[in-house]
């Protein structure tokens, strides 16, 4: 084997893609040729280096959420292709179209289920999911970013006519990330944001009488829970798995009960 031939085989050799007989012939050549051996070492070290240090970018969570929800909508709504009426892939237009589809399909749900409590609940559930997706758009997650109850609670003070319970669950592994105002069920509500690893949990809170044990459901790939307690209605939503999501709800309820 001459050097030109050997050097042509170096790349597949270090990738482990060379046939066995060619490996033997190449190694024989490398034994006797310091120049090709040096080249081989240099290429191998570059490969090792890129594997160790080359960046593997990961998709932003809001991108995953957008794609997931768009797919869901396409599957369930006859109006799925409304999205294409909007120019380009501007995330704001995309969010607007998602909301439009939500509005249309939740209207349909209402008719199907009647105007009773269940229909209303389904409608709120859809709005909650839309709220979660909206919150994941860049810059929409929190208006006040803080893990401090003492910072987040007063922030709501001047903006709402009620005082949502603000509880940090960092000790349970669900740190508070902040809060913001949102609009759900035709009213301004408090949204509290918690995190678990890369997952985001939104908790929407507003005043509502009555007591209701938690009810869980899954929608568009998200887990939802809702309950009423202490004059407040709580809706939580996340892409967290069902077990951890339930754990979060348990902690949230226990903590808010002991706080009141």
């Amino acid at each position, binding site marked *: 084997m001459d*050097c*030109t031939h050997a*050097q*042509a085989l*170096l*790349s*597949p050799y270090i*990738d482990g*893609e060379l046939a066995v007989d060619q490996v033997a012939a190449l190694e024989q050549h490398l034994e006797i040729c*310091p*120049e*090709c051996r*040096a*080249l081989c*070492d*240099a*290429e*191998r*070290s*570059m*490969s*090792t*280096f*890129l*594997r*160790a*240090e*080359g*960046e*593997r*970018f*990961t*998709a*932003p969570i809001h*991108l*995953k959420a*957008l*794609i*997931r929800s*768009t*797919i*869901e909508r*396409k*599957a*369930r*709504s006859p109006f799925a292709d409304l999205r294409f009426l909007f120019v*380009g*892939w501007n995330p704001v237009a995309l969010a607007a179209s998602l909301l439009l589809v939500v509005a249309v399909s939740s209207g349909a749900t209402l008719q199907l289920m009647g105007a009773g409590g269940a229909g209303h609940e389904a409608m709120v559930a859809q709005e909650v999911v839309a709220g979660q997706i909206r919150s994941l758009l860049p810059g929409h997650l929190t208006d006040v970013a803080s893990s401090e109850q003492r910072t987040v609670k007063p922030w709501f003070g001047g903006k709402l006519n009620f005082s949502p319970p603000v509880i940090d669950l960092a000790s349970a592994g669900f740190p508070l990330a902040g809060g913001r105002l949102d609009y759900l069920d035709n009213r301004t509500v408090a949204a509290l944001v918690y995190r678990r690893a890369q997952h985001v949990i939104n908790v929407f809170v507003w005043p509502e009488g009555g007591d209701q044990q938690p009810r869980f459901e899954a929608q568009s*790939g998200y887990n939802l829970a809702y309950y009423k307690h202490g004059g407040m209605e709580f809706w939580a939503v996340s892409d967290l798995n069902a077990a951890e999501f339930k754990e979060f709800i348990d902690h949230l309820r226990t903590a808010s009960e002991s706080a009141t």
Partner: protein
Amino acid sequence: MSVEKELKARRFQQVIMPHLDAAYNLARWLTRNDSDAQDVVQEACMRAFKYFDGFEGENPSAWLLAIVRNSCFTWMRRNHPSEVVAGSEAITDETTASGATILGVDNRELSSDPETLLIERRDRMQANELVQRLPAEYREVIVLREIEDLSYREIADVVGIPIGTVMSRLARARKMLQDSWRRTQAQR
């Protein structure tokens, strides 16, 4: 809402969505910026969903990556036509032999202690920069090989070229990397 469509969406989420990071990584490397990469991945996923009925293969990752890379190159031809080299195979053949000889001289010195070199003289920034400077066709195969750890067969499927071309393109890309790195060192 039809049950079939619902099932298709569910299956898509289970089979294809786990490869979204790989899809984004490839798009991010090819477009070189986050917002274009997001646009391209979204577009590619909608195309993937549209054609998902026809997907029966065993390698959903390669299938999605092939759609993503095609979307990327369409995007580049539209937005940065100068970056996409037409007929890049000609370049491969033309420079291989001479390139190798030149590199051979220098690399003897470089390889005297590869471990030390790795630790002391290169860092992540440099790794990314080296890859970033490659022309798109070569950047693509390096990212698929070194960062996504695909086999030659899988790369051939994703890029839509014969395995022999994967081999020569990778070899050429590696020579470019050595060359580029050598120039960086000379400037210091």
